[in-house]
Each structure stands twice: as structure tokens, then as C-alpha cells.
């Protein structure tokens, strides 16, 4: 890989990351955090890039509700397929590759700083990223509309998005990850954000890659005083995938909400890890993770919640709810709470089972056959998450995807 035009500091950062990768290695399945999908499963695919159909992809999946759309194919920004907003002093919405030329100092102080320190794929991503979104919003400004990132898988891609909100700024980000049918791709995507005082980020990520794909995506978040992040994650497409959300609640009053919905079928392996650290008093976190498991799929959710000494007044809720529709499908849900403060309200719960028999019988007694009744109940289970999405085009895409997977 060559990064000829890049500034010296970036060369140094990449070099340091490469050293981190060498030092950390890639943990195998013996490592608790990588029990089901090991980091090795997620290393780059070498398949050649298919460049056709990109335009129609971009057209089909650009949400009409989006205020700006940035398309990255195989990790390369495609200005021809993108729709950038007018420039303004209040914001920058542009590819990182471009921002490097004009706003190097904004980036040097931020890039990679939200990453957890001990994470090999994060380090590898920081070494190899080719492009991504640079989103900056000025103090107190709310972006006029949602920014969509379309990540189209093509061969192996390394993408990194940097979200730089200033105090009190507000932004909504929709990431759509997809890949061509039947073409093996691997994607490695990181979204990093440090939110200062009062900043708000609404983040939705839809992973609807084709079954041939492998994907790893992570969010690295730091929340300052009274900052808030509402993250919703859909995982409805990959054969092997892992998504991670690392969030540090650094200052009092930070508020984090994470909702996830995974639909696994055939022999999919879907892995999810959330690592939330309460490091300051009076922060709240709420997590709901739901899985619909079919075929002989394996789905996993590991939810780590760490409450540091002194983080009094912490409220941390976590629940995972899972429906298993086939005998061979498995779901593992593992909450891991580590609480070192006294004055806290923490709860976690996990429920995994079949569809409610009473509800099934009721629907059948009204004339729906088992298949239709199941579809109604699964749709209801999914709609609790889907209905929180404010864009009709995204909701209907997700509904159709899930219906198609049952």
C-alpha cells in the first residue's frame, strides 16, 4: 500500500500503528473477547475489485432523506457518486483525503485519539485506512440534515470516519454498508468521535452486505460533559461479521444509548461487542441488543460495562433479547458488568427463546397460518428497533431485508 502524498506526521502515525499491530498480534479464539469470530477471520480479502454496478448501487441506496451523501467504494472516495453539501464556516462534510490537504491540523490532533489502546484491528485500521468521512460541526450548530455514508464493499477496504463535533454541536450520521451479491469482500471500518460538552450525535449503521462478505466495523467514542450519543446498529447481511462499540463516558452527565438488531440465517456468524466505560459521575448508558437467529447461524453478544471508582450516580442498563427460530441456530449473550463504584443503578437482563406460543396460537386462531404468524411476530420484534429510525426509505429497506431473511 502506498500513501505517497501524505504528510510526514501521518506517515509516522501509520508507522506507529504498524508497530502496534506487530506488538499486539491477532488474537485467536482462545481470547475471551474473540471467542466466536477471531480477529484472524477478519483479515483482508484478496479478491479483485469489481468496479461495475457501483453507480446503480449508489443510486439505489442513497437515502432521499439525506442532506449529504458520501460514497466510498473499496475504501476510495467517489466524488462522481457523492452529493456534498455547500461549503460553510459552520461545518465540514468532506472526505478525509481532501480534508488532509486543507485542515491537517484539525485532523492531526484528533485522528486515532478515540481508539482503545489495546485493539489490534483498530491499530491495523489506523495504519491502513485509505479514506473516510471528515465531519466537523461548529460550536452550537446543528447540521441541517443527516449525512449518509455509503460504504460499498469491493475487495478489501479500510475506511475510517472522523467525527469532530465542537461543544453543543449536533449531527446525524447514517452509515450504509453494502457489497455486491456473491462477490467476496472484506470491510474494516472505524468511526471515531470525541464529543465535547453538550455535543449530540445520532448514529445509525446498517450493515447489509451480501452473504459472501466478511465485515468488521467499530465505533470508538468518548463522551464529554452532558454529551450524548444515540447509536443504532443493524446487522442483516454478512456471513461473518463483527461489530464493536467502544464508548468511554469521560465527563459527568454523558448519555449513551445503543440499540442493535441482528438477523442471522444459514451459517452466518454474527458477533457483537459493546464495551462501555463509566469513568465519571452521573452518566447514563442504555443498551438493547436483539437477535433473530435462524438456520445453523451463530450469534453472539458480549456487553461489557465497566463502572470506575468514583463514577457515582451511574445508571447503566443493558438487555439482550433473542429469538431462536431454528433448532440448530445458537445465540450466546454474555453481559459482563464490572462495578467499582457504590452509588450506582446497574441492571442487565438476557432472554433467549422461541416465539411466544400464546401469541402464535392467538394469531392462528384468527386465521394466520404458522408461517404468517411467525412473520408477524418476528416483524414486531424487529420493528421495535426499526421504528426508531427517522427515515422511511431506510425503514422500508430494513423491513424488506428482514422479511426476506425469515
Amino acid at each position, binding site marked *: 500500500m502506498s500513501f505517497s502524498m501524505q504528510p510526514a506526521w501521518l506517515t509516522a502515525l501509520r508507522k506507529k500503528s504498524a508497530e502496534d499491530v506487530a506488538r499486539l498480534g491477532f488474537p485467536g479464539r482462545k481470547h475471551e473477547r474473540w471467542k466466536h469470530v477471531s480477529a484472524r477471520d477478519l483479515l483482508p480479502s484478496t479478491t479483485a475489485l469489481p468496479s461495475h454496478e457501483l453507480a446503480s448501487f449508489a443510486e439505489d441506496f442513497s437515502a432521499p432523506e439525506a442532506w449529504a451523501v458520501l460514497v466510498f467504494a473499496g475504501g476510495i472516495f467517489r466524488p462522481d457518486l457523492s452529493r456534498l453539501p455547500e461549503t460553510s464556516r459552520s461545518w465540514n462534510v468532506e472526505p478525509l483525503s481532501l480534508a488532509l490537504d486543507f485542515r491537517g491540523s484539525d485532523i492531526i490532533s484528533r485522528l486515532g485519539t478515540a481508539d482503545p489502546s489495546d485493539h489490534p484491528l483498530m491499530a491495523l485500521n489506523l495504519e491502513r485506512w485509505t479514506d473516510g468521512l471528515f465531519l466537523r460541526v461548529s460550536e452550537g450548530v446543528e447540521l441541517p440534515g443527516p449525512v449518509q455514508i455509503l460504504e460499498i464493499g469491493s475487495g478489501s477496504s479500510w475506511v475510517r470516519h472522523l467525527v469532530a463535533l465542537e461543544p453543543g454541536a449536533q449531527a446525524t450520521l447514517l452509515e450504509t454498508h453494502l457489497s455486491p451479491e456473491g462477490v467476496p469482500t472484506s470491510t474494516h471500518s472505524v468511526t471515531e468521535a470525541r464529543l465535547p460538552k453538550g455535543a449530540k450525535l445520532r448514529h445509525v449503521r446498517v450493515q447489509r452486505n451480501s452473504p459472501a462478505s466478511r465485515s468488521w466495523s467499530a465505533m470508538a467514542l468518548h463522551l464529554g460533559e452532558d454529551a450524548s450519543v444515540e447509536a443504532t446498529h443493524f446487522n442483516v447481511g454478512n456471513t461473518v461479521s463483527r461489530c464493536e462499540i467502544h464508548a468511554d463516558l469521560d465527563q459527568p452527565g454523558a448519555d449513551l444509548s445503543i440499540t442493535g438488531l441482528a438477523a442471522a440465517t444459514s451459517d452466518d456468524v454474527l458477533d457483537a461487542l459493546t464495551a462501555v466505560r463509566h469513568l465519571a459521575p452521573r452518566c447514563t448508558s442504555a443498551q438493547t441488543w436483539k437477535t433473530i437467529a435462524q438456520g445453523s447461524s451463530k450469534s453472539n453478544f458480549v456487553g461489557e460495562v465497566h463502572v470506575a471508582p468514583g463514577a457515582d450516580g451511574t445508571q447503566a442498563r443493558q438487555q439482550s433479547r433473542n429469538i431462536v427460530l431454528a433448532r440448530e441456530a445458537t445465540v450466546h449473550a454474555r453481559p459482563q458488568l464490572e462495578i467499582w463504584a457504590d452509588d450506582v443503578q446497574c441492571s442487565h437482563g438476557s432472554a433467549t427463546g422461541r416465539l*411466544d406460543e*400464546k401469541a402464535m*396460537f*392467538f*394469531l392462528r*386462531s384468527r386465521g*394466520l397460518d404458522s408461517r404468517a*404468524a411467525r412473520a408477524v411476530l418476528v416483524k414486531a420484534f424487529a420493528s421495535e428497533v426499526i421504528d426508531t429510525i427517522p427515515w422511511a426509505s431506510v425503514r422500508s429497506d430494513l423491513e424488506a431485508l428482514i422479511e426476506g431473511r425469515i
Partner: protein
Amino acid sequence: MNEVLLEIKGLRARAGETEILKGLDLVVRRGEVHAIMGPNGAGKSTLSQVLAGNPAYEITGGSMTYKGADLLALEPEIRAREGVFVAFQYPVEIPGVANNYFLRTALNEHRKHKGLPELDGGAFLKLLREKMKSVNIDSSLVSRSLNEGFSGGQKKRNEVLQMLVLEPELALLDETDSGLDIDALKDCATGVNTLRSPERGFVVVTHYQRLLDHIVPDFVHVLHQGRIVKSGTKELALELEERGYEWIAAEAS
């Protein structure tokens, strides 16, 4: 005499290890309204569940014939599409399933079964609004999750609403009156009365005579320990109201 709609002969059923129905006989003809009364634990709700085809109950003997066919051999959804409807005593709450979406899906399953074209959203809504008026159901409930957070009266009205939309040939109402105030009770009764016709048969299961002031039955039966032990006309209900069930138990044993 009208055609027999439902014929139950010597029906035995159990839930788990306990036998609850112990040889129940009942004949319902088109155009008739039958009331089944009886103390708690007599088997009233089991009869409702068995008629609807709940797989949690095991049939250990006897037969149920509906429109000349073996009802017990039919899946619950086929029974429903063939015109059997049970208004349940404890309607389930199903979070995330919108009432109107569910009901339209159900109606269209019935229509497909009959070879009729499906109703689109607009046509269905028109039909639904019309039916809602007759049971005084609040229009805001229609787009909410099925029975979720509904009051007791709203749930029962919602059951009756489903009956009105699906227009069954045989309807069994399982203690639809329990826990209802007088307005809700009247609305539910109105729902039944608008559907009464020479083609349809009704079975009204109840503890109390008061519902029968509003839905006047042709026959009243007393269910005791899993069997019909006494049958009569509507005057029997009044007698039960006055004398309780004990004299019947004594008579039966």
C-alpha cells in the same frame, strides 16, 4: 329445524395431567344462541380453547363435527377461515403488532381462503371504521400494538371488533362480560346482536345472567365437572341467578 352447525359428542380433553372435559355433548344449529353457564373450574374455558384448536390441550375422546366435517382434524387457522371464532377470556397482548395491520392480515387470509380478492389498506380502513363505531372502540386503539396497555373493557371490545370484521359462522364468546362495566357490556352485546342471523350460531359462555339480558339466548346449559348436566331455555339462567349452582351439582351427582 335449521342445519346443525356444531355437534360435540362425548368430548374429553385434558391440559397436562388433569382431565377437564369429561364427556361433553352440545348441538348448535344455525340461527341459535346458546349460553353455557357454570361455576369456576367447570371446564368453560377449556371448551373455548379446544374449539379454537389450542395445541396445549389434548383431546382424549369424543368428537367435534362442524358443518359436517371433523373439526378436530383441522389446524386452528383452517378452523378460523372456515368460520369458527372464539373471543377469548384473556386476550393476549402482542407488543409491536399493530392492531389494524394484524386484523387486515387476518381478514385477507379469510378472503383468500374463500377465493375473494384481498382488501387494500384503504378499503380495509373503511370497513374497520364502520365496525368500530358499533362497539364504541376508540379510534386511537386501532393503530396501537395489539391489546398492549388496553383496559379490560378495551380488550373485550377489541375481541368483539375482530369478530365483526371476520364475520364468523360460529362464534364462541368466553366470559366476554367478566370485568366489564355496563357500557362496555352493552357495546359487546350490541356487537353480537348485529351479527345474529339465521345462518350464524353463537355460544356465549358466562358466569352471570346479566349478559343474557342483552344477548337473549335460545338455550341455556349448565356445565359442571366437564359435562353439560342441565339444559333449558332462558328461564334457566334466571333460576341459576337466584338459586346458584349448588342445587344443580346435587341433582347431577
